[in-house]
């Protein structure tokens, strides 16, 4: 399974999806106009990962900021992962944010209320 690494730009986050290092992480700012174009290959990668026989994943979100177009795509990613759980995969999501970042905490709460998959809030 090939890893997927995307370096951060002014308006897209850094993506690490690396089975060899067992590291799966999104970090930085996400504010592209066309969020689907950026995130669809990532969702596709996750589906391939599951189809390749991997039985678990811990996905880390270390986001500084994201726009509503990205929030929709993050919803889609979590929705995809929820489907993996229903198929018997072990999925954990860890949501890192700074203590005073009410927006990021709010986002974690929103998503937690929408999915039964575990979203662990980790305060930096």
């Amino acid at each position: 399974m090939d890893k997927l690494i995307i370096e951060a730009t002014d308006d897209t986050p850094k993506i690490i999806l690396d089975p060899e290092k067992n590291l799966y992480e999104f970090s930085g700012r996400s504010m592209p106009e066309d969020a689907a174009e950026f995130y669809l290959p990532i969702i596709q990668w996750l589906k391939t990962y599951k189809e390749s026989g991997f039985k678990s994943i811990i996905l880390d979100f270390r986001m500084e900021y994201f726009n509503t177009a990205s929030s929709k795509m993050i919803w889609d990613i979590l929705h995809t992962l929820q489907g993996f759980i229903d198929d018997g995969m072990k999925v954990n999501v860890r949501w890192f944010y700074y203590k005073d970042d009410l927006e990021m905490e709010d986002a974690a709460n929103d998503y937690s209320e929408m999915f039964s998959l575990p979203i662990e809030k980790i305060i930096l």
Partner: protein
Amino acid sequence: MLDKNIKGEPPQVEISYIFDLHKSMIKHKLLLVYEGEFSQELTTSLLSMTEKKIDLVGEDMSIKRKIFYVMMECLQNVCKHSQLNAEKKENLNAIFMIGRDENEYYIYTGNFIEYNEVDALNEKLTKINNLDEVGLKNLYKEMLQNSRLSDRGGAGLGLVDIARKSGSKLYFDFNPVDGTRWFYSLQVKINRNNPVKNVQTI
């Protein structure tokens, strides 16, 4: 020897409006005004210019973040409309302004929309203004769940987010321009003294 015409003669075009514009900006406490075409690149530039202006007064990080969230969604909404206008080969500029007084930041946008968009937008904005924090949170979640990718950001998700993040009502106005076009103005306030607390349901 200098040409007489450029030495001390009154200019051919009336330019005292520069001073008027300057005075007007001071009067309305505006930090930044941009009029013209909007794009993703411009959005990024306006955000970083605003950030510098805000840093000069050492604004609180939580207020800065709110300004960033609200500006981003406001500007991307204008961008989406600019693209639609460009597709119709219309070159219709839009305006963005940010101002500040002792208690609040004011973010303004103005852009042209089609007359047949006015009712739906008016309805959407009125609906948002009638919701409290919990109502906005629930609407946001409902829209996340039900919007499609093709909605380019989720058909109004941006406006709901602006209302949530700012904690302010959305002040808006529509002015007819000609038979087919209206001018849509939006003002959002961000309080500098009472940062909005996040809401949890359940």
